[in-house]
């Protein structure tokens, strides 16, 4: 089929039904804008929680009077673990020194200390991708079983709550995005459906004149794609202006907004998303063509 002709028909229809199309575009744009904002939120929560593992480490406190051999053993076991990035032995003398510098103003606290009350310890940093409550728990219980380790400490509660926030926002965000995408498809669907009904007679004539299904479908799919694309473009303009005109300005006075990361190149996918959703909606609206 002559492709330019399908585009011409679509263009005529878009122009002829400009009000329906315009309202659909606005609806799609607001739907996609909401979707984009949710995605931005999830993205930011994700990015924030991803930075935390860098600061995450586990402390293994050792019993006193370990032999050199026993210490080597523990260090080796830890170092060989797949989840561990780096191990560092901290003798108790050093720990005390550090504590003293940290609490310089309260030096009186250390007066009269005969003996170092601290333990020798090992700090283990986990690999970035391995940081999760399960791994930390496993490592802790494995190490506790080793003779010579007195106590294991890590921010158990903290770690698991961070993870539930991350998983929760992801899940809720995904559900919302699916619902909103469904809504956008539905708007395209109903728009094309209305146009399709209005052209029922015309389509019947096409069929009687021997048109193939593709010939009948193409202009509607193009129109759906166009509506979706325009909606996506509008939502892109919306979110860009929201970011550059509102968030950035607010960040001058409210620090919270300063932390927002805006993935510009991903947001460029919005018009494309709109286009695809529009095509899907149109295809569903046309449905099966029977002769």
């Amino acid at each position, binding site marked *: *089929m002559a492709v330019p002709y399908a585009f011409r028909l679509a263009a005529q229809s878009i122009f002829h039904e400009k009000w329906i199309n315009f309202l659909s575009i606005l609806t799609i744009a607001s739907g996609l804008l909401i979707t984009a904002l949710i995605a931005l939120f999830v993205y930011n929560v994700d990015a924030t929680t991803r930075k935390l593992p860098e600061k995450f480490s586990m402390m293994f406190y050792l019993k006193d009077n370990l032999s050199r051999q026993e210490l080597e053993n523990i260090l080796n076991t830890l170092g060989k673990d797949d989840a561990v990035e780096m191990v560092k032995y901290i003798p108790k003398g050093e720990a005390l020194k550090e504590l003293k510098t940290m609490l310089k103003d309260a030096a009186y606290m250390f007066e009269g200390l005969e003996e170092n009350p601290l333990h020798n310890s090992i700090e283990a940093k986990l690999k970035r991708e391995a940081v999760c409550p399960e791994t930390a728990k496993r490592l802790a219980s494995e190490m506790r079983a080793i003779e010579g380790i007195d106590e294991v400490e890590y921010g158990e509660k903290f770690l698991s709550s961070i993870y539930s926030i991350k998983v929760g926002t992801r899940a809720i965000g995904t559900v919302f995005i699916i619902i909103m995408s469904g809504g956008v498809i539905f708007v395209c669907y109903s728009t094309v459906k209305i146009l399709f009904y209005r052209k029922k007679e015309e389509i*019947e*004539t096409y069929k*009687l*004149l021997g048109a193939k299904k593709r*010939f009948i479908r193409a202009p509607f799919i193009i129109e759906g794609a166009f509506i979706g694309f325009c909606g996506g473009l509008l939502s892109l303009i919306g979110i860009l202006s929201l970011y550059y005109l509102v968030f950035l300005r607010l960040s001058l006075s409210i620090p919270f907004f300063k932390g927002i990361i805006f993935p510009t190149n991903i947001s460029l996918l919005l018009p494309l998303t709109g286009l695809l959703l529009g095509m899907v909606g149109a295809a569903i609206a046309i449905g099966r063509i029977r*002769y």
Partner: protein
Amino acid sequence: MIHFHRVSKHYDNQTALRDVTFSIEKGEMVFVTGPSGSGKTTLLRLIYLAEKPDEGNISIAGWEIDKLKESSIPLLRRNIGFVFQDFRLLNNRSVFENVALALRIRGVDEKGLKTRALDSLKVVNLRHKADSYPFALSGGEQQRVAIARAIVAEPAVILADEPTGNVDPDTSAGIIRTFKDINARGATILVATHNRGLFCNTGRRVLRLDSGNLVGEETG
């Protein structure tokens, strides 16, 4: 070319065609006549696959229509030019576009399209109305546009449903002459009409329908 064997077509509580059997050979020009409601349009629509028969067999150009795949229906229709009783012109397209549509559907490219559509309009004496819209034409002019659209792709078969219903005797004589010309070049033509004047003294076969029955065949 067109074979009906004991074909019947019923609507809800109405029999439009009953036990109709006939054959039309390639290159023939045949008339179907009968009073209003006798089943002429139904007969043509069956050939065009716009309706399915309730009983009997139809074959067109060697294709058994009950064995035809749905995807072949457009291909079959492209071999047939149909002049609809109610014209079926698109009011939002110019006369030219209406005629050209038959070519676009067949995938003719833009270059060939223009000359062929305009030539076809010339045949029905409407070349000067190419840029008008159907709603701005008289009934007879619309009918001629419908004829131009049916013949433009030079189909092997032409089915014309009351093609002279809205025109004066001179114009209708012209239309019949056009069909004869096209027939002389090899197309098979079937014309449904209740106007005896069209087939009188043509020497062509005339099938006579009455209340859905094929009651006789004569020579015009």
